């Protein structure tokens, strides 16, 4: 009984100690602007969560070392409080509450994935905390009328409609037949809506419209249909497992389609895991290092790529690049607002119009970035089997010419 009491008092003492030490970490302390972020460091999103965190950290270090943020004639440095949301939306919402109401954070950075951003956005909205997010692309995030949510990336419905336009262009402006296979999650279904819009707009026709399960690792049945219907374009979106499964089974079942367009190719390390089998796949990407956007902090995509690789030992996927861009947006907004008042910062964010190494950033009413088109790259391999992603659309940034139609398997 006495032991229990001792343990109990020990725990309560600890709790009091923790809560006081936590409260002292307010939003702007001394010369520090403290941002909060719930990031998936464990759980199923942990690899992309780590990319996100590395992107944030890289930008914080860079901005701090290059003079920090100037507000009201004083220089401030960025600092971020991270919590691990375990890839769990409920946990993410709890942590957002905790960051705001316990840690006193007044400005937030987004988590990884549309699902988790959806969980956090109502919380930041409730407290009027401006959040710049870099990894939630789902269209539904931008139709809810959120006032404090800003996304530096293009919304999900723009991911693959470029591919349909490209196919129509190659077909001399006539409509094409499209086979679609999309995972049943918020993000992929938004990509699907975008493709449907493009189909309607171009007078094309959908011939297959399959919804893939979340525990997707076999799409043989869909591919049998594709073989039978012979569509002009096959569009697949199901995160990394969708991309990997599609390439594996398309190559094994020798499915010939003139154009194959997907998402998440670089996250899936497609060319590394599948080598030449992934050749000719078209992939939607938010960013590519060869794009010629510029800023003062990271210079351009190639420099960012080199610096990031030096610091973290791997080439930055677009998830890292867009996360770094989020910090640049915050810095710009603080300086224009010249204040830490949440409302003023929010208004400054809404008026953002800038170029970063990642792309132009200008927010629409709903908070999505409308000034940065998606790019499509195509996996191209040399005879030695070394594969590279080359931008083929939009034409303005193309570093290689689109190979169309894809050579049939018997000719490869």
């Amino acid at each position, binding site marked *: 009984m006495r032991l229990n009491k001792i343990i109990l008092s020990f725990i309560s003492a600890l709790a009091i100690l923790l809560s006081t030490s936590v409260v002292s970490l307010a939003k702007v302390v001394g010369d520090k602007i403290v941002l909060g972020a719930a990031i998936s460091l*464990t*759980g*199923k*999103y*942990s*690899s*992309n969560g780590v990319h996100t965190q590395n992107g944030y950290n890289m930008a914080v270090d860079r901005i701090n070392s290059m003079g920090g943020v100037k507000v009201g004639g004083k220089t401030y440095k960025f600092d971020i409080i991270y919590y691990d949301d375990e*890839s769990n939306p409920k946990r993410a919402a709890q942590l957002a509450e905790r960051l705001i109401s316990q840690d006193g954070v007044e400005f937030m950075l987004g988590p990884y994935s549309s699902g988790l951003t959806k969980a956090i956005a109502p919380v930041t909205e409730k407290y009027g905390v401006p959040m710049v997010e870099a990894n939630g692309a789902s269209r539904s995030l931008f139709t809810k009328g959120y006032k404090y949510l800003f996304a530096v990336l293009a919304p999900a419905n723009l991911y693959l409609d470029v591919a349909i336009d490209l196919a129509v262009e190659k077909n001399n402006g006539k409509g094409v037949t499209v086979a679609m*296979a999309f995972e*049943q999650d918020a993000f992929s279904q938004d990509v699907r809506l975008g493709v449907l819009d493009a189909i309607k707009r171009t007078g094309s026709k959908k011939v297959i419209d*399959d*919804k*893939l*399960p979340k*525990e997707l*690792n*076999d*799409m*043989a*049945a*869909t591919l*049998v*249909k594709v*073989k*039978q219907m012979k569509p002009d374009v096959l569009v697949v979106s199901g*995160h*990394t*497992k969708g991309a*990997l*499964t599609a390439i*594996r*089974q398309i190559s*094994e*079942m*020798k499915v010939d389609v003139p154009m194959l367009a997907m998402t998440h190719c670089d996250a*899936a*390390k497609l060319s590394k*895991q*599948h*080598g030449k089998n992934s050749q000719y796949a078209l992939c939607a990407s938010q960013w590519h290092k060869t794009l010629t956007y510029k800023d003062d902090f990271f210079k351009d995509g190639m420099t960012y790529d080199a610096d990031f690789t030096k610091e973290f030992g791997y080439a930055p996927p677009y998830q890292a690049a867009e996360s770094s861009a989020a910090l640049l947006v915050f810095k710009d907004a603080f300086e224009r607002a010249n204040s830490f008042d949440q409302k003023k910062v929010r208004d400054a964010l809404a008026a953002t119009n800038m170029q970063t190494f990642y792309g132009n950033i200008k927010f629409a009413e709903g908070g999505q970035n409308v000034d940065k088109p998606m790019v499509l790259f195509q996996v191209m391999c040399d005879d030695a089997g070394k594969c590279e992603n080359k931008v083929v659309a939009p034409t303005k940034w193309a570093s290689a010419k689109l190979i169309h139609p894809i050579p049939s398997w018997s000719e490869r």
Partner: protein
Amino acid sequence: MISIQACLDGVLLGILFALIAYGMALQWGVMNIINIAQGDLVILGGYIAYFMYLYGIHPAWGVIVAPVVMYFVGIAIYKLVINKVVDRDLFISILATFGISILFMQLMNFAFGADVVLANSDYGTTMLFNNNVVLPNSKIFSAFISILFAVCLVIYMKKSKLGRAIRATAQNARAAKILGVDTEKVYAATFGINAALCGVAGALISITFTIHPYMGLPYTIRSFMIVIVAGLGNLPGVAMSGMGLGVFEEFADYILGTEFRIGSVFLLLVLILVYRRFKLSRKREYLK
């Protein structure tokens, strides 16, 4: 042609499911434990093959290495957890294995990362009927290996001393104990054999499909369902219901659409359970 394709795809897939289900039926029958972590053991086996592939060894060797490693993993799990719940009621063991499942998922995620991975076998493709039916050789290979392991196991269970001890324990643990069978050892071996079978299946899955730390549950559910349909200790039943489930899934996918694939499996499970219940109740009335 499409039906032939779907049928063959389903049969090849089903044979693989049947192997996992066989392991589950074995330990369910012997120890009265429903192993929720079955699918996670499968995925762990897959990672063993994947890592061999990463280090330049052909992943097909995984079907030999993975079961050996997994056997010992199985024994370890038994010694640490299962032996404490083996004679408790079913609910406790479900909870315990559910815990193991979560632990394994997180550990695998921690150790191997959350990326979806696969091992390339480069086995090529077999074309049948004027190229109208395509079968990836990796699927044929996995079906063949699954059958091989299942047959070996059946023979082992019939002929070897341990096999007979396992069967005796399954029939009546108390009687077996009285007659000098070390049931503790039998339980450990059974769990180890089950884990080894999962290891083989996992290695095959990494060659034919993809693996991911959180992908285990669908395999647990499928094997659970196969065992429910076939009944315990009914090996041909397990094989048949495995293949049946595979074919059913492919056809449901093809006819109803991929989104109803898993749903139709559950629907089938419900129908079968209701039917069994119905049949059982009629039998009872008849006996009265």
